[in-house]
């Protein structure tokens, strides 16, 4: 294989003019392919809305008949209740109704003042009771019952769902990505010449093979929606090209991390199919996270100003990236848990521990991401805006303290907004990012042709500029749009979500991705002080790559489109 590669390199070096012309044309092709791949995927994600599944009916005397569209429902007088009974004697959030299986439901009265009576038996508040469909429930004097979805109705439902627009078929996109990957190899050969080693070429080819296998396998298993994976595979391809341009020796590491991440994603998707099983995992995840953060504090090595690395032999990783996954899982909760104070306190305590560890490590970029995720997830859980604002103000004060005691951080704030006046000291990285990035124009200079790679952290913190220079402004912005799309998708799918657990997971993951992208992009182009945070999938670094892929499972778990997601068990 090495011989073949050198043969190609020889050809391009024999006809340099021709090779240059080829790059000129390739730049256009890359942009067109990328736009096709990403826009088709984005469009498919945002237009294939799903009809919510109906799990049963809640019948109220005197005519109310409410379809139950989630596994977890709040019954109450408040308008935002899932089952809204506008009767004075019923509390705002009166009770929770959770689906156990086709015939059994769990009923839990939340209100201390009003009463719930089932089949004549008075229920104690905050205790779970198993009820059957058809049981008589009396809440605040109102008679109700849970009715199963009739077989006929279920069928109708299925038909309705079949009428939903199906996700786009993956084959054309797969072909486009494959073409993109092959042409990337050609471009790297032209640009790098003898500096190109075999490993990036093989890694890109292997990624291509894995991509086809993944889609073919799960397609055969009946899965339909692959847009998110397509986006991830595409972003990973850009990552491999960036690595090849920056330091081809690292490609193998990136590849292995991506594969581990993909494996972890599949595992998490399958594991999360069972909600109870997933919830039981929480204590273990908390224990492991605390352990690895403590290990990090004890054994951490400093890189780029933050002691957030653990090195064992020649193997090093960033524990905080892994803890991100745990952080989301622990923040998530079923509707029932959201009404339990213990669960809320535990989450707050865990968050505080994580933030404290990150602060000690000096990794303030990641701390900011954790903090924001905590605030967003807390708001999703409680809906308490005032508490969120309070927490935010508190965090702001802490931030001011940090600035006082860490001159290194303060100096970054000092140049913020006018980096061009400090072009050769604190503004060095940002000015280079913008200068080389602008040099790339809309179409880029071609992979391997950039010069930003000679600047420190170019392939991680400044990767947005790296992509702008070599791939052009259009592709760089498309990558940002991908992250935005995942967020919109996560929010859109709550309508049909089965459990708050999944939707909080997806929104938490979306917040993490968004924050990472905001800090990475804004920091590199002086819209915000440079904090040294990675761009999901695109920044080089094994742990970041692995975490990005695994994080995707949270989005997959929220994907409620008809047999779209492997995180959702198919109905028999």
């Amino acid at each position, binding site marked *: 294989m090495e011989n073949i590669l050198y043969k190609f390199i020889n050809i391009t070096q024999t006809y340099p003019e021709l090779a*240059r*012309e080829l790059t*000129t044309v390739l*730049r256009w092709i890359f942009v067109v392919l990328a736009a096709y791949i990403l826009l088709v995927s984005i469009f498919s994600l945002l237009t294939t809305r799903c009809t919510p599944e109906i799990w049963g009916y809640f019948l109220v005397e005197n005519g109310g008949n409410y379809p139950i*569209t989630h596994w977890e*429902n*709040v019954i109450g007088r408040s308008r*935002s*209740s*899932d089952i809204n009974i506008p009767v004075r004697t019923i509390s705002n959030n009166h009770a929770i109704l959770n689906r156990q299986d086709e015939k059994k439901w769990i009923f839990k009265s939340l209100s201390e003042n009003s009463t719930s009576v089932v089949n004549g038996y008075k229920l104690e508040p905050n205790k779970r009771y198993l009820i059957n469909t058809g049981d008589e429930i009396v809440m605040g004097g109102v008679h109700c019952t849970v009715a199963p979805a009739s077989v006929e109705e279920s069928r109708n439902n299925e038909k309705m769902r079949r009428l939903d627009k199906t996700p786009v078929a993956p084959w054309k996109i797969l072909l486009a990505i494959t073409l993109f990957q092959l042409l990337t190899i050609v471009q790297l050969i032209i640009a790098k010449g003898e500096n190109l080693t075999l490993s990036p070429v093989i890694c890109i080819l292997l990624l291509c093979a894995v991509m086809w296998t993944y889609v073919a396998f799960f397609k055969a298993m009946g899965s339909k929606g692959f847009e998110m994976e397509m986006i991830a595979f595409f972003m990973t391809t850009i990552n491999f090209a960036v690595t090849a341009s920056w330091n081809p020796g690292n490609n193998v590491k990136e590849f292995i991390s991506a594969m581990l991440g993909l494996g972890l994603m599949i595992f998490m998707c399958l594991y999360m199919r069972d909600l109870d099983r997933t919830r039981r995992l929480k204590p273990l995840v908390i224990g492991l996270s605390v352990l690895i953060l403590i290990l990090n504090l004890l054994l951490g090595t400093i890189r780029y100003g933050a002691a957030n690395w653990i090195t064992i032999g020649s193997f090093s990783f960033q524990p905080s990236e892994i803890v991100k996954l745990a952080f989301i899982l622990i923040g998530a909760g079923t*509707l029932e848990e959201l009404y339990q104070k213990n669960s809320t306190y535990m989450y707050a305590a865990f968050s505080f521990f994580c933030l404290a560890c990150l602060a000690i490590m000096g990794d303030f970029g990641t701390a900011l991401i954790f903090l*924001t995720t905590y605030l*967003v997830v807390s*708001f*999703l859980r409680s*809906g308490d805006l005032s508490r969120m604002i309070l927490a935010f103000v508190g965090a702001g004060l802490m931030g001011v303290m940090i600035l006082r005691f860490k001159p290194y951080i303060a100096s970054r704030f000092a140049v913020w907004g006018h980096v*061009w006046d400090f*072009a*050769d000291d604190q503004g*060095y990285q940002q*000015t*280079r990012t913008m*200068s*080389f*990035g*602008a*040099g*790339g*124009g*809309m*179409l*880029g*200079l*071609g992979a391997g042709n950039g*010069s930003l790679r*000679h600047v420190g952290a170019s392939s991680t913190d400044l990767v947005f500029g790296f992509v702008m220079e070599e791939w*052009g*402004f259009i592709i760089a*912005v498309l990558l*940002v749009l991908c*992250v*935005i799309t995942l*967020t*919109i998708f996560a*929010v859109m799918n*709550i309508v049909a*979500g089965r459990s*708050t657990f999944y*939707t*909080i997971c997806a*929104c938490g993951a*979306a*917040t993490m991705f*968004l*924050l990472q992208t*905001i800090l990475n*992009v*804004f920091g590199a*182009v002086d*819209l915000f002080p440079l904090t040294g945070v990675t761009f999901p999938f695109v920044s080089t670094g094994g742990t970041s790559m692995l975490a990005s892929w695994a994080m995707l499972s949270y989005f997959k778990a929220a994907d409620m489109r008809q047999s779209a997601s492997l995180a959702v068990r198919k109905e028999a």
Partner: protein
Amino acid sequence: MRKQERRAYICLLLALVLFTGVCVFGVRFVQHGGEWASFYGNTQIYTDGMINRGTVCDRYDEVLMECTRDGIIYNDEYDVRRATVHAVGDPAGNIASGAINVFKSQLIGYDLLNGTYDTSAEGKRIKLTIDARANVAAYNALGDRTGLVGVFNWKTGEVLCMVSTPTFDPAGRLPDTEDGGYYFNNFIDGAITPGSTFKLVTSAAVIDNLKNRDSFTFDCDGVNEYNGVDFTDIHAHGEVNFRSALAQSCNGAFGELTRDVGADVMQEYTEKAGLTEPVEMDGVKTATGSFSFPSGDNVKLSWAGIGQADDLVNPCAMLVYVGAIANEGEAIQPTMIKSATFLREITGGKSLGRYLEKGTALELRSMMKNNVIENYGEENFEGLDIYAKSGTAETGSYRPDAWFVGFTDDTDAPYAFVVWVKEGGYGSEVAAPIARSVIWALKEDRGQYESE
């Protein structure tokens, strides 16, 4: 679940932050991309701190400077290099208004679509509007005196000649930056006492404001004492009217005319002539002139009206004003970049607005013609339909500065010019021949180019 649905909008808010930020950056990218790309830190286009691609040539395609990876290569001829260095720029970028600084993003071939990507990696060819040979003529005419020659086409705005001395050879050892005079472009950066050339502005004020100007007479005895101060002239002009006062450049007469017009009107007409604002030329702003017309001090006001006292004019602004007189009152913005299209030749250059009423401009033109006939001698400008005003500005030095401004009105040579020689002596004796030789050179080059 419905509660979570609503609360989740907060995620969309974050997404909006990201989207807005990227949009803001996108706008900046479009606006400043060229600037960013040509930043000296961009090693794609800089080798050893010097720009490594792009060519600058004159209006007839004579190469003045070529930027390569092996350094900057200038024109072969010593005189051409010295005559054009202020237009082209020096390797260190010390001449702020040099093409190498001002047209950097064009030189590197930056455009929004391709960035600095270039198949040839040779950059772009920038065609300046100057005529290198005419610049050499101007440079030779100035000799080793400090001064400047600026010529532009008052219809299209193209600057044909821009020479500032002292000058230096950009291919040789660069002068010390402390010795700022070399890097100073008098035409753009200068603010100089205008002397009698300013009477063109005073005259415009008189034409518009003194109805009885045709009956104006002044008896010049050569000393012209006013309020105990002498407004001396070279010799006694005897009885002069308004026209002959300008032709003879009679200080006594113009002192009185200024007083008749008054301080406020003088201020207004100086502003209308564009002399108190910088001129913008391809994004470069010239120095700003400054004047003061005190209403309570008639002596000082008189001096100000004849271009002395605190009067300081930027030569480029003066050129634009003279061009406006030629162009029946409408001022045209000067430019150094040769337009690829012929459109400018037909439609004219970018208008800066009306500096003078048409009637005022026509009367001034006729008076400037009269200056040539009565004073400078038409025979001295053979083959040129020339209109002019000389100036001899007292700066307190041992010899006055010599000025000569004006324009020609040939269909193939609609040129306005400004010549200034520091401590040169009398304007009409010293500066006028320089203007003549430069315009001859311009006409000759044009004729040659057209016959080819």
